[in-house]
């Protein structure tokens, strides 16, 4: 993903500190270059403090990030420093070469000579491949130069040398996103978030946005919409964001840059309408969706999307929209499943049962379909039949809380109280993990 060319020329090489937060929010908040620079700035600031403290107090590889003088002091006084542990062929000559290289590399980096900085950091790392900070600087520079595969490799070195490295994991995830390795990107971004990469609000926006793009590319559209909802509530506005939301909403596993121009207006309009709901602009959202329904009466997934977005605030209307989707697209397993799910959440399992059954018939591999059918069976008096569907869910998603909760209920109804108790304890554990995970995000 790249940001529009006009922003590319105006913001591309500006240091983040030169860009006001409002400019970022409105125009270029998704810039990966800005993100890299921001992360780098934070890293340098943090490392600087750490290094100075550590130079006075104890050993650290971080000392080498500051300057040749600090490096010399660090090497002289703290022989266990990672920098000193590097396998140098000629210790005296090489340490001088190394110090000079990182000094020159830092200077090149500071004056914006990215290619020279990359070259010098690469040479320094040939002399001392156990220098973690060098890999970080090299990785961020390569990322900024669109060298995503080398950047990924550099960050991998850094992550191995300085775990858990939340920001580096997230940045590696962004590299993987750029080279189309969406599953790995998503995994790295999520691990990065778990290790604090998104604790800073501006980083959080960029990371969350790419996480949502990854989810969309992997076909996990509803999860993507969840992430986009967080971003929409934060007030993000730009055409690319609307396209991204529209793509997830229409269940199209594409990136905004891959949208066929012929479809762009429709997808962007759907995205805008969705963003209005996400922000709680109910009247505007309803008007926008009604206009879309009038203009595109046979368009699949629109009623489904509208229903999905209404689910938390107006579940009754959500069911109506899922049913309307089925008029346009009778084979939509996900619309059947969501209609059933919404009814089940309201405790109406009898009404939910036919839709749940049909969802499984249309698409047996749909996890949600198996879940709603399993639950409907359990709740309408056939817990034994429900077990197989719930187990099917857990085969593909072993941590699915809803499936475990329903399984506990089924086992309880069958009188298997000890098994039910184990399931309940497992549910509480999964729920607790959810709480602690949310607390870190």
């Amino acid at each position, binding site marked *: 993903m790249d940001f529009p060319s006009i922003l590319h020329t105006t913001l591309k090489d500006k240091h983040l500190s030169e860009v006001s937060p409002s400019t970022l929010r409105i125009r270029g908040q998704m810039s990966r270059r800005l993100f890299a620079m921001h992360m780098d700035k934070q890293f340098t600031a943090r490392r600087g403090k750490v290094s100075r403290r550590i130079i006075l107090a104890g050993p650290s590889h971080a000392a080498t990030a500051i300057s040749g003088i600090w490096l010399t002091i660090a090497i002289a006084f703290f022989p266990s420093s990672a920098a000193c542990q590097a396998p140098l062929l000629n210790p005296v000559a090489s340490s001088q070469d190394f110090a000079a290289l990182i000094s020159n590399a830092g200077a090149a980096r500071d004056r914006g000579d990215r290619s020279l900085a990359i070259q010098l950091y690469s040479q320094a790392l040939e002399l001392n491949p156990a220098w973690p900070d060098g890999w970080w600087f090299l990785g961020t520079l390569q990322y900024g130069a669109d060298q995503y595969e080398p950047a990924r490799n550099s960050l991998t070195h850094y992550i191995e040398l300085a775990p858990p490295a939340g920001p580096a994991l997230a940045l590696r995830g962004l590299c993987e996103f750029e080279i189309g390795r969406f599953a790995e990107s998503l995994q790295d971004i999520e691990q990065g978030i778990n290790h604090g990469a998104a604790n800073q609000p501006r980083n959080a926006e960029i990371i969350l946005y790419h996480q949502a793009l990854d989810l969309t590319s992997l076909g996990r559209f509803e999860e993507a919409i969840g992430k986009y909802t967080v971003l929409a509530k934060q007030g993000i506005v730009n055409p690319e964001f609307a396209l991204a939301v529209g793509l997830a909403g229409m269940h199209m596993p594409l990136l905004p840059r891959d949208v066929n121009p012929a479809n762009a207006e429709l997808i962007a309009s759907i995205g805008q309408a969705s963003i209005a709901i996400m922000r709680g602009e109910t009247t505007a959202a309803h008007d926008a969706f009604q206009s879309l329904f009038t203009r595109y009466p046979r368009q699949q997934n629109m009623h489904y999307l509208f229903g999905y977005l209404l689910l938390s*605030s*107006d579940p009754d209307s959500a069911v109506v929209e899922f049913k309307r989707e089925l008029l346009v697209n009778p084979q939509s397993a996900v619309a059947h499943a969501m209609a059933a799910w919404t009814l089940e959440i309201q405790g109406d399992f009898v009404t939910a049962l036919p839709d749940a059954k049909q969802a499984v018939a249309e698409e047996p591999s749909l996890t949600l379909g198996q879940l709603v059918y399993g639950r409907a069976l359990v709740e309408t008096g056939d817990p034994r039949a429900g077990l197989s569907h719930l187990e099917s869910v857990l085969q593909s998603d072993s941590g699915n809380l809803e499936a475990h909760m329903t399984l506990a*209920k089924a086992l309880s*109804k*069958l*009188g298997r*109280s000890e098994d039910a108790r184990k399931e309940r304890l497992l549910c*509480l554990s999964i729920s607790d993990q959810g709480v602690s995970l949310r607390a870190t995000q």
Partner: protein
Amino acid sequence: MQLSRKLAVILMLLAGLSSSAQPKPKPVTCTSCHQAQAFSQTTSQMAHALQLPGSNEVLAAHPKLTFRKGNYSYSIDTHDGKSLYSVTDGTKTISLPVDWAMGAQAQTFVLEQNGQMLESLVSFYPLINGLGITTGDERIDPKTLDEAIGRPVSKEEAKTCFNCHATHAVFDHALDLTTMKPGVTCERCHTDADAHLMAILADAKTIPTPAKLDQLSTEDMSNFCGQCHRTWETAVRSHWRGPADVRFQPYRLANSRCYNGADARISCIACHDPHGKITRDTASYDPKCLACHSLAAVTAAPDSTTAPHPKICPVAKSNCASCHMPKVALPNGLMNLTDHQIRVVHPNEPYPD
């Protein structure tokens, strides 16, 4: 279908009104045929879960209630059956009538301002015999007088509130206060009672019989009562933790070691009669505990590989609940509630989540 149900309710109400004028009144209300249950149910707390102006004994007994939080002073003044909820910052005052009071003893008030329902920021608590911050609203820090009145309630939330505190409050999935009957009455639980009564009114040849709730399994009963008292799933799904979740009895009960969804001895109605006043005498529950935890019960129980044999208490054979179902104070200290997570309680142990 929903419309016909609504018509049925209106017809029932009209028939109930006109029946007193008939020489031989037809059995058009639940009370006509089910007098014992209908009369005793009126003594239950559930029957008084929603109170209207003029019939609110709590407010009638406390004609002047006051409370202060930060810069805001609250008062509820009750005269001639009408209550006025006021909040002032010293310069301006907003006063609204108390339209609905949720709760039989502890009460939270539902107000209406410009068509928007509000949950009062202060509630009445018998434990302190006065007002305190509404449970769950402790973190609200009002910045304006309007915010100080109470928390805006969405339509969906209002529907949920009234659907539990009243009968016939929801028609066609929407809140409808025109046919609402305050409190939990017969038809709220016996959901097929409408068709049953309509058939009687119409002198139909076949009268459908409402489902008997005592035939529900323990698991289903727990979920049925949990519609309002919160199910185990609801509590887990919502990540509710800490002593405040002691309010959710079905959730706590299902966490008990002795809970078995297929054993009627641990069902909600094994201990509680929904048609009667709640029993506060701890010892009166002993037979319920001893139905499992006694030598006779253990001896009579079939061998089972799916459920452990219940243990027999080595300490006492009476007042079981006083030890095994301790009272837990809500974090705000305004209510003490019985913990339905039945367990062996160890001294100084933290509240088990």
